[in-house]
């Protein structure tokens, strides 16, 4: 009995051990660091310092505003794009090509892509030249060092997540449901509103959560496109770990960020929760 049971137990323990070693343990290390002084004495001083300082709240506000706007713009562009790929493109090779176009940038480094945007968004970059050429603006617009510039960079990098999540959800909606809806007298617009959109909502939500979390925790893109004028929370954390070497204070910043992000995601999830039996 125990002879056959032991290998089974060991096998079952493996995934658990993996999670403990690679996910739980690092988190616990950071959490403990955030609750201790450099000498190892327990303290809440780091958290008090963060929460009592208006500067931190300002940075948090900027960070979450950029995150929320990025998510919103990604949804506004990504949903129609996913619809186009899943519902309008009939020719499979073209659809496959579009998906590849969408996914391939994910294989290149964020740094390379953000530098690309620095070039494009610069005073004499392609974007300003184009806008002036079209007569939309007279003098070059300032993108670098503005929230708009960061927003453009983040949307570009995170858009595929929404498109893939929504496209996956749309592809799973049974065409027979649309037929049934039309058969019962619903116009195509009503069918979208009452059947297709609600059924794609879980995919949209999971994509939006992913984009939001990646946007608020992004470092490279905001750092490169901010030109030092805008600070997001991940930059504060980076400073503490890389320049100040204060792992305790840095840990407290990380945990604050994590808790607030999870809280916001939980609230959003509760608000849009589909009806459950």
């Amino acid at each position, binding site marked *: 009995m125990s002879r056959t049971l032991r290998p089974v137990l060991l096998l079952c323990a493996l995934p658990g051990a993996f999670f403990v070693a690679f996910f739980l343990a690092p988190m616990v290390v950071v959490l403990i660091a955030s609750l201790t002084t450099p000498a190892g004495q327990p303290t809440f001083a780091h958290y008090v310092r963060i929460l009592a300082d208006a500067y931190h709240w300002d940075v948090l506000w900027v960070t979450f505003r950029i995150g929320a706007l990025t998510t919103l713009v990604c949804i506004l562009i990504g949903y129609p794009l996913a619809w186009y790929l899943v519902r309008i493109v009939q020719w499979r090779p073209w659809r496959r090509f579009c998906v590849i176009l969408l996914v391939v940038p994910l294989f290149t480094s964020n740094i390379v892509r953000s530098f690309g945007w620095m070039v494009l968004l610069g005073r004499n970059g392609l974007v300003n030249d184009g806008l002036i050429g079209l007569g939309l603006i007279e003098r070059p617009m300032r993108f670098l060092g503005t929230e708009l510039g960061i927003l453009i960079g983040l949307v570009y990098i995170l858009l595929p997540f929404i498109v893939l999540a929504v496209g996956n959800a749309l592809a799973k909606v049974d065409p*027979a449901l649309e037929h*049934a*809806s039309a058969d*019962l007298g619903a116009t195509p617009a009503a069918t979208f509103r009452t059947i297709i959109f*609600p*059924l794609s909502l879980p995919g949209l939500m999971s994509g939006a959560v992913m984009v939001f979390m990646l946007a608020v925790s992004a470092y490279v893109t905001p750092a490169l496109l901010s030109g030092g004028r805008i600070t997001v929370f991940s930059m504060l954390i980076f400073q503490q770990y890389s320049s100040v070497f204060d792992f305790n204070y840095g840990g407290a910043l990380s945990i604050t960020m994590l808790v607030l992000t999870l809280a916001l995601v939980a609230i959003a999830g509760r608000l849009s929760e589909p009806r459950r039996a």
Partner: protein
Amino acid sequence: MSSILAIDGLSKHFGGQPALTAIELAVEQGEFIALLGPSGCGKTTLLRCIAGFLAPEAGTIRLAGEDVTRLPPYRRPLNTVFQNYALFPHMSVAENVGYGPRRQGVAKDETVKRTVEALELVGLAGFGARLPAQLSGGQQQRVALARAIVNRPKLLLLDEPLSALDLKLRKKVQGELKQIQHRLGIAFLFVTHDQEEALTMADRIVLMNRGRIEQIGRGQDIYAQPATRFAADFIGDANLLVVERRGDGSFALLDGAITLPVANAPQGELTGVLRPEDILVTAEPVPGRLALPAVVSEIVHVGSHASVALAISGTTLAARLAPSALAGLSVGRPVLANIRLADLRLVPGDA
């Protein structure tokens, strides 16, 4: 008085392949019609054309006198029960049933009233709050029916609605469906590939094959007077005999064992149709019948009757006998197969 549904010269192609050819069909108020045929015969394509999910290349579809051929599905005064029910998974049973009235702008309390009535009619009163995933297959099927009839359509289309149910449940639901149809007086157009289902439920059967209508009629009429070889073969069992046309205009079957006088038979290839129960197997000739010498080659008992294979002039015919008529029969024994020429029908089509 025009028909509820009138289809005239309807044709549909899929990539050059004809799927429906010159369909003519009229359905009257309150009729129960079965669209019967093997898979790929075009019956579902025809249903989709009527519902508006496919656009035909030629012909017209009229609903209660109105030409709906070019109307989108949501403007056609009919409803469909789909093969896999297509219930909306994110809506409760009541919301599913109330969907049609809501889309048509029926007042809220009227929608609720009609929903309750429809659910009562299909025997699901009190199930309104459940989600489709919490129902059995049979219950989902009833919700799909309630969702369709709540709109009081002029015509209800049913696309193999019972094919996902097990045999026992299917028999039960067949009876209930027939009762509901009778009570509502709505014309039902019911697609099925199951001839027994068509025979037990339908007032008239529309028999289809290869995109064409082979025959329209009551089940017993198609059985007794099949119009084509396909009709004879598809409805019930039949012995299909090769027919030779002779120089003098008469016909020879079974290598000349049977000759039929000159008749006003159709042109082209003909097939002789003889039902198994029309053959009497005896030792002595039966008066008024043609006695053909035969040898018993096989006896298969099927409970209520026995199927006896008879070798006659190199052809094997099946005869259906009551168990009592089997006395004295055994394989290899010479017997007489007694038939009436009146039971032998010549229909177009190659045997």
